[in-house]
């Protein structure tokens, strides 16, 4: 029962006796977490609560809404709360587990929060990062089906959805014929049967493996699909279980209905989990970068999701996407920077498309786990031979349920066996921490590149009759602009405001070209200049004509670029 405080049981002294620091990792964290296993919602909440208790000035934990089954969707806010309002700092949003079977995005997100707070005291880089930025981290945005995947019998691919039950086969009954864990081992594996016309044989050298025979050969086994039987008497097995809809086809940029985009539900954000995220994002216009985690295949993905949406991603923004993701490829060996519609599949209604198309936020989805991590070769996704090798030499049989015979009520004598639900797509424990760290580093890089605005120069020039001009230069010293070009196209976010407070302002203008005095005057409210954008690694100049000699203050107020002041 004291586990909530177990971090306090290992005093520093003792730690120094027992451990020696490895570079790059908190060697004596206040919150102890084993990054080589997966967590249920209960396990996650305990870690998050401990982090909040251990670092109250760096961690805020809040529920941003409820899931379909009334679980909380938890959001961690990580920032240095003693250095400004976290909701006004440029922010990086990270989530995991939108697909319920894709567990590790949760642990990777949580690792990010944990790493930032546990290393905060040691590293000036992290101190500056959390002074400037905020990380909003929602480790699981699909908690219902996360627990269901872990606690109930499933395949590695089920469920992908949340827990809303639909009539998959449109027969008028809902979820009436799902998987059945016939051998009661907690995994849904495969059913095979001996058959005189079967097209498979068991590999003599490795009888776990079924191999297809040549066209002119007789085989021994036929495949009967995943474990189950025909519950409703319609002659089909497993045709209507949990699932069908896809939480990543539910987002409000160019959303299309199910007959166009399979997996879409009723309308954008008709799934409560996504609605909670959307509402959070709408209330936090300071989010300038975003990351969602999926599995698997080793990819850093950007949109467009759909080929029909190609024109949304214009060159100016793609340049920034490229710059960040190419750095990511270096940090993430085995990961490739790809574009969803052409390298994966063409889909509407994805999360990354809404974040970018609908909010103008640069967003990636990483497909975690890649064959490369096993033997430093790229054997591709779902490579059975490699999986068998891994299980033989690295996990020693932990990933596979050996074939055993079973008396099936409809198929008669069959055999059941195959890969477990936690194999293949999910990292084996020994590969998790490294990949979590590398992905964390990628999102830290992305977050670091959100705008950083500074007033770098203020020039005064006296004119006649107690009037002077004040010219201020505001620089953005990071890659990401305050408004992406998608944002500018639709005016998604309000302009940046650069205000002069103190003296009476007679006129205000944006200086387009200082050398040749080209300006654009703003005829209304001259003390508060509206600037459409402050580009990445660029600057804007504004000028006021003011009366008198009073001291003044310049305030830069940008939704995505934060607030900064300059005083005279």
């Amino acid at each position, binding site marked *: 029962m004291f586990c909530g405080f177990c971090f306090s049981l290992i005093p520093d002294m003792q730690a120094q006796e027992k451990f020696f620091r490895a570079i790059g990792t908190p060697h004596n964290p206040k919150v102890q977490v084993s990054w080589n296993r997966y967590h249920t919602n209960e396990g996650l909440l305990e870690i998050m609560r401990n982090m909040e208790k251990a670092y109250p000035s760096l961690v805020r934990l809040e529920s941003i809404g409820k899931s379909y089954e009334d679980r909380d969707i938890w959001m961690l806010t990580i920032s240095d709360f003693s250095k400004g309002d976290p909701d006004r700092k440029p922010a990086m949003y990270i989530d995991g587990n939108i697909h319920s079977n894709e567990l590790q995005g949760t642990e990777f997100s949580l690792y990010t929060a944990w790493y930032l707070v546990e290393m905060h005291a040691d590293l000036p880089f992290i101190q500056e990062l959390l002074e400037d930025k905020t990380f909003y981290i929602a480790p699981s945005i699909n908690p219902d089906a996360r627990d269901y995947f872990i606690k109930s019998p499933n395949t590695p691919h089920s469920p992908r959805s949340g827990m809303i039950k639909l009539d998959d086969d449109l027969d008028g009954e809902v979820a009436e014929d799902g998987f059945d864990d016939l051998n009661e081992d907690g995994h849904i594996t495969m059913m095979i049967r001996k058959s005189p016309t079967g097209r498979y044989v068991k590999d003599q050298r490795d009888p776990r493996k079924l191999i297809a025979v040549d066209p002119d050969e007789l085989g021994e086994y036929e495949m009967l699909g995943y474990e189950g039987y025909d519950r409703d*008497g319609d002659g089909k097995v497993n045709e209507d279980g949990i699932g069908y809809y896809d939480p990543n086809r539910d987002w409000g940029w160019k959303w299309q209905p199910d007959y166009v985009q399979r997996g879409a539900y009723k309308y954008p954000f008709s799934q409560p989990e996504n609605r909670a995220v959307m509402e959070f994002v709408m209330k936090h216009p300071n989010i300038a970068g975003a990351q969602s985690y999926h599995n698997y295949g080793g990819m850093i993905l950007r949109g467009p999701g759909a080929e029909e949406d190609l024109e949304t991603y214009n060159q100016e923004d793609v340049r920034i996407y490229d710059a960040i993701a190419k750095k990511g490829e270096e940090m993430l060996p085995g990961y490739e920077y790809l574009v969803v519609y052409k390298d994966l599949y063409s889909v509407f209604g994805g999360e990354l498309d809404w974040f970018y198309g609908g909010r103008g936020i640069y967003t990636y989805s990483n497909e975690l786990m890649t064959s490369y991590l096993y033997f430093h070769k790229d054997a591709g996704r779902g490579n059975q031979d490699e999986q068998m090798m891994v299980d033989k030499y690295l996990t020693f049989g932990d990933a596979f349920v050996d074939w055993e015979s079973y008396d099936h009520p409809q198929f008669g004598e069959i055999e059941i066996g195959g890969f477990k639900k936690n194999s293949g797509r999910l990292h084996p424990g020994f590969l998790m921490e490294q990949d979590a760290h590398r992905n964390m580093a990628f999102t830290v890089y992305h977050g670091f590149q959100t705008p950083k605005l500074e007033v770098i120069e203020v020039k005064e020039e006296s004119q006649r009759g107690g009037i002077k001009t004040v010219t201020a230069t505001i620089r953005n010293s990071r890659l990401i602009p305050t408004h992406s070009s998608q944002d500018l196209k639709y005016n998604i976010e309000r302009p940046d405001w650069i205000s002069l407070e103190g003296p009476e302002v007679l006129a205000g203008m944006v200086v387009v070209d200082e050398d040749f005095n080209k300006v654009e005057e703003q005829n209304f409210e001259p003390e508060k200049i509206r600037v459409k954008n402050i580009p990445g690694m660029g600057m804007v100049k504004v000028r006021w004509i003011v009366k008198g000699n009073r001291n003044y203050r310049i305030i830069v107020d940008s939704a995505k670029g934060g607030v900064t002041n300059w005083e005279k």
Partner: protein
Amino acid sequence: MVKALLTLPLLLFSLGLLAQDDYPTLKQLEERLKQLDIGFQEANLKSLGKTEGGKDIWLLELGTGSLHQKPAMVVAGGVEGFHLLGVEMSLQLAKKLLTDNKAILEKSSFYIFPNLSPDAYEQYFAPLKYERRGNAAKIDHDRDGRISEDGYEDLNDDGLITMMRIASPTGDHVPMEHRPELLRPANPQKGEKGQYLYKSEGTDKDKDGSFNEDPEEGIAFNKSLTYQFPAFETLAGDFPVSQVESRFLLDYLYEHPNIYTVFTFGPADNLSKPLAHDPQKASERVVTSIQKEDQILNEWISGKYRKHLPEDPFHNGNQGTDGDFFQWAYFHFGRLSLSTPGWFLPKQKDENEDVYSSQKDNFLAWADKQGMQDHMVEWVKVEHPDFPDHTVEVGGLKPFVLHNPPFHQVDSLAQIHTEFIVELATMHPQLSFIDMKTETLDRGLTRIKVKLFNDSPLPTHTALGKKSRWLKKIRVELSIAAENLLSGEKITLIDHLDAYGSREFSWIVKDGKTLTIKAGAPHTGTVSLDIAL
């Protein structure tokens, strides 16, 4: 029984109330709905919830018995706040169904949503009237970081928002030749110099150079649904179905798979003129044209509709707009979707005997002929702070007159539409079993043959509905266990039956005395057949 006892005095009372001479206020609407609810067993009134402005979204369910298992027709009014007619028509339709057309309720159910834009609808009754579309949500339409900072202003104090014309050499409008009280765009390519700037009534309150660009209204129901959603346009919002009333409605519709037809009273019109089919657009991944089979159906139904209209109607040119409800009901909900403004003017002819191309011109010619006096605001000079040195006049066509007939005309329009809607509901799919034969084979085996027949001029599924997961398949099921079937399936799912289409089934069963075959889908109704072996 309790209901019946309550009915009489209330009905008598309601006769007095019904003698109204203008479109109903929200309060009157609620009272009339409640009278129907109390007065008729077949009526059930629900509020799906409240809008941002605290107004109820009312639903009147009409039907008998298990009404959610029969083919149903949705009737939607108030899809636009300025379309007052649709609200009154939905109400009158409900009343007429309950009083004069009860027989149809045996076959079909009705889900009547009389007013889907109550926040905007109220503007007609407000001290300042204008054709409002948006609800009460607080929206920053010009996306400048300030909410509703530049709305309309009543400069001539007549309680109406009309237009302003500002005499200016930089103007881009000129008076129309045959109707100088209205303006049209100048044509500088043909050497024509403009005379007026032409803007809606108001000032540039925030001095940003735009007029009335951020009014006190929120999101328009009929511009914010998922089909061709016009992202970030004024009144549409940032993403589709952002408003609570839209979600109430769509959730209800998605949860009622028995809906066959969606009938909209609104600006869009595919009844006086059917939609056109575009083979290219109909076959792309994102479908943006009606399917061929559905177009043929639309044409046939449109022909029936026109027979109810007294004269050759002037078509307003609106066959759907981005994000609207009528197109959503077909393209995204897969249903037979029909829409009509409910009021058509006859085609007027100009001095050259040509018909008009614009709805406004046709209306004005008609209004002249009728001797209407009250549809225009005379241009009057006003002082305008943004144009101190210019002549600024306010005037033009009054709001609402183009879309809503004088109230005394509504009764006859409601009668026409009730007749048509009843005719349509009578045609809803009707399944039956025909040509049943049993044949005794040896040793207790029986072969059963039967046809499932759709006795209706409408198919069970629209062509688009066949693709949609929101229409169920027709399920044909035998009451006996699968192991007693030697041939044929216990459960068969059929994608659809054509108009007057049928499908034959054959089974061989063993060891039974009686069995029942059931067939149907929620939107076709279910039939069953008992067979003695």
